[in-house]
């Protein structure tokens, strides 16, 4: 694969036989002190977060805050329009009929939270990200089918092509590939 000149190395990619192997490999890599590595699998692997030593996702907080904002905005909008901006007597009911406003408030809370969750997820995952080093690897694409990959990226402080390749082999990687590209 490594052919053209002045290519740069993006990462070292190792394929593992099963979810289990990948999980154990991940623990080792973590213990070896690598930071910029990732495990690619067709589906989320149970326990992998601990194995890789990842902290809890922040999506929840984002969603929560957005939800609260949505709700607050809704209640404010309804209250302000019907009591301050243009008070109209409707069916002889109080201008601020908060009971009636609950539904829209609830709705916008949900909407806020949902948008927060999705956008938060995308941002935290840096998606969309159509270009990525790993895509230089021909075999990498099997991650979405039935393969399990471990990739240690070049900009990891402890990164060294040969040492990393060796290390991944030692962890039982079926194939180890140095991903290069323009």
């Amino acid at each position, binding site marked *: 694969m490594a052919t053209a000149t002045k290519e740069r190395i993006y990462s070292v990619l190792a394929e593992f*036989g099963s*979810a289990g192997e990948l999980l154990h490999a991940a623990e080792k890599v973590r213990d070896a002190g690598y930071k910029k590595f990732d*495990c*690619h699998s067709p589906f989320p692997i149970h326990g992998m977060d601990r194995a890789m030593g990842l902290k809890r996702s922040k999506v929840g907080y984002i969603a929560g805050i957005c939800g609260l904002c949505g709700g607050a905005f809704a209640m404010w909008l309804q209250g302000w*329009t019907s009591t301050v*901006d243009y008070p109209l007597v409707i069916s002889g009911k109080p201008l601020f009929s908060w009971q009636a406003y609950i539904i829209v408030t609830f709705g916008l809370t949900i909407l806020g939270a949902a948008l927060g969750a999705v956008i938060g997820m995308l941002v935290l995952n840096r*998606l969309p990200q159509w270009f990525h080093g790993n895509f230089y690897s021909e075999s990498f694409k099997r991650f*979405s089918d039935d393969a399990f990959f471990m990739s240690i990226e070049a900009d990891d402080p402890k990164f060294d092509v040969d040492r990393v390749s060796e290390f991944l082999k030692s962890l039982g990687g079926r194939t180890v590939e140095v991903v290069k590209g323009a």
Partner: protein
Amino acid sequence: MSVAETTEHAPGYESPLITGEQTFGSISRKIGEITERKTTMTWLLAFGAAGSLALVLLGSIGYLFYEGTGIWGLNVPVAWGWAIVNFVFWVGIGHAGTLISAVLFLFRQRWRTSINRFAESMTLFAVICALVFPGIHVGRVWLVYWIFPLPNQMGMWPNFRSPLLWDVFAVSIYFTCSLMFWYVGLIPDLATLRDRAVTKVRKFVLGLFSFGWRGGNRQWKNYELAYLILAGISTPLVLSVHSVVSTDFATSIIPGWHTTIFPPYFVAGAIFSGFAMVMTLAVISRKLLGLQDFITLNHLEKMNKIMLVTGMMVGYAYSCEFFIAWYSGSIYESFAFINRAFGPYAWAYWIMVTCNVLVPQVFWIKRWRRSIAVMFVASILINVGMWFERFVIVVSLARDFLPSSWDYYKPTFWDVSTLVGSFGLFFTLFLLFARFVPMIAMSEVKGVLPEADPHHGGKP
């Protein structure tokens, strides 16, 4: 299929969720191929048919805009007709999707993985059909944007006390959330298709929409939580939506509408009709697309059980209505319900009862519960019944407080064409989906294979 058909298992033993010795690879292949292979004749024919029906809808709407709502059978007292019936009907259909994808997800019902994708899709399409109606049924469509709180030179704001306004918010929010839920679930599968893609076009399109997904666990981590949150908030949402729709009737003072039981009763009904629709589609598509291994009889049976339950809830609601009408001591209420059962619209009422209460009872019997033919017919009958339920409710208008204003509502050609057309729209969208989008959530199904468990000693 053969396997599943005969699978008998002792109580407590969880039969395999999918059959046919599937591996990760076989799953991506079988599901992927559906979208990759050459367009089949059957599909083209079906699409043609559905498409032309959708055009009927378009035509009807065009004529409606030109002439006014008078082309429908509406009158005073029955100022709402089929438009609203269809709206409620379609919104109801939508519910099953979210229920399966969200509620069952929260309950860790892993069997949902096989059906959640197209249940969700069906939700989207149903809600699209639903959203058509509030838009077109108003007298002055060109001003319909006034229901949104937009600053304007009149200094006017919408009236947030109106259930109709709640509808607009609830349903459009429901649609947005379902769309996001659906798409988020779709990303990894699009990536799978992307990676299987050969042609440049497919590479580009699928690449574009899969956002460059790399299935890295750092992504899965956020992804899973986001998905969980969406599921978590979709659950109260889906329950609220039809409750809100029911307030269109429940908050009014019209006998037969003014009923506190409506919210739960509507939700139950919605799930009921929704599952019926999923069933209809599932039965057809698993046959046509050879998905018997993924949508097994066990799945269908489970859905039938849910239909049986919700069907009886609805039946309970019907009887409860009658009891309350009598117990309330309000002569208007009691008249309204006696009138439903024995008045000019009795025929509609009894169609409703037969289809919604009697028909599901067949699912008490295991053999019928597992018989494709039975469940297919039943699911269609149930949808008919649920449409009539909404019809019966809406035409309670025909006889309210002052007998002097009583009248009878007769649908016109345009009422019918609009309803038929909406089905056209629905199936058009569904066929497009079935052709171009993975019908089954591959990454999720892979996730429920035994091999997916890292502690599974299984072979590579």
